[in-house]
């Protein structure tokens, strides 16, 4: 793992966020509280997987039982499938606040058994993703604190207490590895900007994440800089389909994403009113690449990549909008990951419980 710049140590996760696999079975894990992304060698012990599906009912109950918690005290943030063994990794928060524990769980794809992935004395690397000012930057947030925090400032007879601390964070909403770089979409808790970070991997000492300012033009008339909620690389990493917090689905060519330039994407679809994109994945069916979009209002949406390439930018805010799509009658899906070539693994809410279900790509 030395070729990826990993060193042995403790992966100190303060909040378990989105996860995605990179090269050589390295798992990227976003931690929104400490504003870091960790690259962890998970040392997956499983044999090479075949092309079997994998289903596990009540995965939330199983994880909660393993962690010794009520299900209400367990939040499954994200899932990823190990590309070789097909073991399923879940990023999990157990409990609340400081008393909470962040756990990376591995579900065995052969028997459904659950273990926690060691995070102490394991090969890993980390990179800071905060937009917050660096320690040597004067522009820290200065707030007037409550109680006894901060420092006192005496001005004549007045005493003012000030607190210098960054309160700005960038919450990672999605991440994906494409050819030597990690692409990270984030949501700031202050300005409503649209940034996609490109972080070279292996992480280097002088890592400068390129912030790519991303715009989309809606219906030919309105320009928007809104945060990307979820995205998926496709076409061998040459294209990206991104979905925004305000629902348009936008195509970018990765080659256009040059640091320091304003990138305008082509709006190719709308997901409909009062709808939130949740996750996307690409898969091949009949020799052609397709994308699946999990969303909050409808069933799983399937889009053919060749239709994206053919789609002219949208010009009218009327229905139906954008690329042809099929809506599968699969409700409650919040997360998606490829499970080999023949299946997509979905995390699906049903009857108040969460289940892992393999969807056969030939039948989608």
């Amino acid at each position, binding site marked *: 793992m030395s070729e990826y710049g990993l060193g042995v140590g403790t992966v100190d996760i303060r909040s378990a966020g989105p996860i995605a696999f990179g090269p050589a079975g390295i798992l990227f894990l976003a931690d*929104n*509280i400490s*504003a870091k992304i960790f690259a962890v060698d998970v040392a997956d012990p499983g044999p090479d997987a075949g092309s079997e599906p994998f289903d596990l*009912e*009540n995965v939330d*109950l*199983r994880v*909660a*039982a393993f*962690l*010794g918690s*009520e299900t209400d*005290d367990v939040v499954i943030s994200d899932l990823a499938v190990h590309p070789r063994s097909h073991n399923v990794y879940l990023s999990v*928060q157990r*409990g*609340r*606040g400081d*008393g*909470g*524990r962040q756990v990376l769980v591995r579900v065995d794809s052969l028997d*459904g058994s*659950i273990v926690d992935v060691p995070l102490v004395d394991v090969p890993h690397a980390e990179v800071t993703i905060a937009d*917050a000012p660096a320690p040597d930057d*004067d*522009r*820290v947030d*200065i707030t*007037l604190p409550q109680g006894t925090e901060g420092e006192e*400032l005496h*001005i004549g007879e007045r005493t003012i207490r000030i607190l210098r*601390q*960054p*309160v*700005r*964070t960038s*919450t990672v909403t999605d991440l994906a590895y494409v050819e030597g770089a990690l692409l990270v979409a984030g*949501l*700031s*808790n*202050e300005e*409503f900007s649209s940034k996609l970070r490109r972080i070279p991997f292996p992480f280097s000492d002088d890592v400068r994440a390129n912030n790519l300012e991303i715009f989309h033009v*809606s*219906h*030919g*008339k*309105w*320009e*928007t800089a*809104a945060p990307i909620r979820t995205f998926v690389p496709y076409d061998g990493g040459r294209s990206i389909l991104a979905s925004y*917090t*305000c629902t348009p689905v936008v195509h970018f060519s990765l080659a256009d994403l040059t640091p320091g330039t304003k990138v305008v994407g082509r709006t190719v679809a709308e997901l409909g*009113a*009062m*709808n*939130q994109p949740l996750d996307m994945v690409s898969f091949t069916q009949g020799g052609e690449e397709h994308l699946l979009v999990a969303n*909050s209002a409808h069933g799983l949406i399937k889009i053919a990549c060749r239709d994206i390439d053919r789609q002219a930018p949208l010009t009218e*805010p009327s*229905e139906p*909008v954008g690329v042809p799509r099929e809506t599968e009658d699969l409700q409650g899906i*919040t997360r998606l990951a490829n499970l080999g070539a023949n299946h997509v693994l979905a995390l699906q809410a049903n009857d108040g419980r969460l289940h892992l279900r393999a969807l056969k790509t030939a039948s989608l």
Partner: protein
Amino acid sequence: VTRVFWSHRDGEDCLRIEGVGESVTVEVRPYSAPAIEGLPSMAGRLVRDDGSADFVPRFAFAEGTPYSVVVGGVDVAVLTRPRPDVQATTEVIGIFPTSTEVPRNLLRLYIWFSAQMSEGYVADHVRIVDVGGHEMVGVLLPSEHELWDGGRRRLTVLLDPARIKRGLVSHHEVGYPLAPGTSFRLVVDDTFCDARGIPLRGGAERHYEVGALERRRVEPDRWALTVPSSHTKEALSVAFERPLDHGLLTRCLRVTDRGGQLVDGAPEVAPEERSWRFTPREPWVARPHALVIDPLLEDLAGNSLSRVFDRDLTDAEDEPVEPVPRTIEFCPR
């Protein structure tokens, strides 16, 4: 089994089961876990010692949670992990903006708490209600990604941008989340738990009235500076042309001296976020100074110095300008 009780082993909490044979299986499960096939038992290690067994969990027992002890496949005891008697002390210390009137295209609100809060429970405890107290469903951006600061004391709440931005389907079909001339309240429930899992001391709310749309860039040219006297520690006072975003105001304004060095002091955002005061640590000197404004600074509707939030490409007034810091020079008298 003769006895089951909470104990310690090598400084770690454990469950001690006395009177258990060497070859009998011992498992611990949350009492609420249903009997489904293949359900794992709680992770931990079992240390056997002369007719007793200590179960040391890998993940600490959760306070207030009942656990079943299963010996040889039979439930032998249910014990609830005690919850320390702690008082509710955390409260809401501020809801921003503090101006009563907000633009119709209001984009975000901030809630400050006095102590660290729990994550993952915002949707059930923070809501917008109308004048009749009914929840206005679909006004807030539904997001599984909660926007906390690093200390989990400040929460950012976004209104659904798809309903605010023109040209999007939600805006077209459902319209703005807020109607002009109406009022609403942001409500924080007292059942919202802090990081210890303890509810707030009390709920909190703030009342707002909805004004007109705001679709102009922030205009520092229209700000009014009250310049302090030299050799004093009087505050520099800056009055804005409209209320600005509280979160961004804390970091987007700074004062520099002639050499560009930061002047140390205490900034204060005045009520209603209509003005800002800066009191220096050392007395002012009678030389040129500058108020430096980060172009990221936004108003309540997300319009910044460089761009309008919801840009009409056919309107030349909406053209974005270069996002570079702006300066307003002043010289203490």
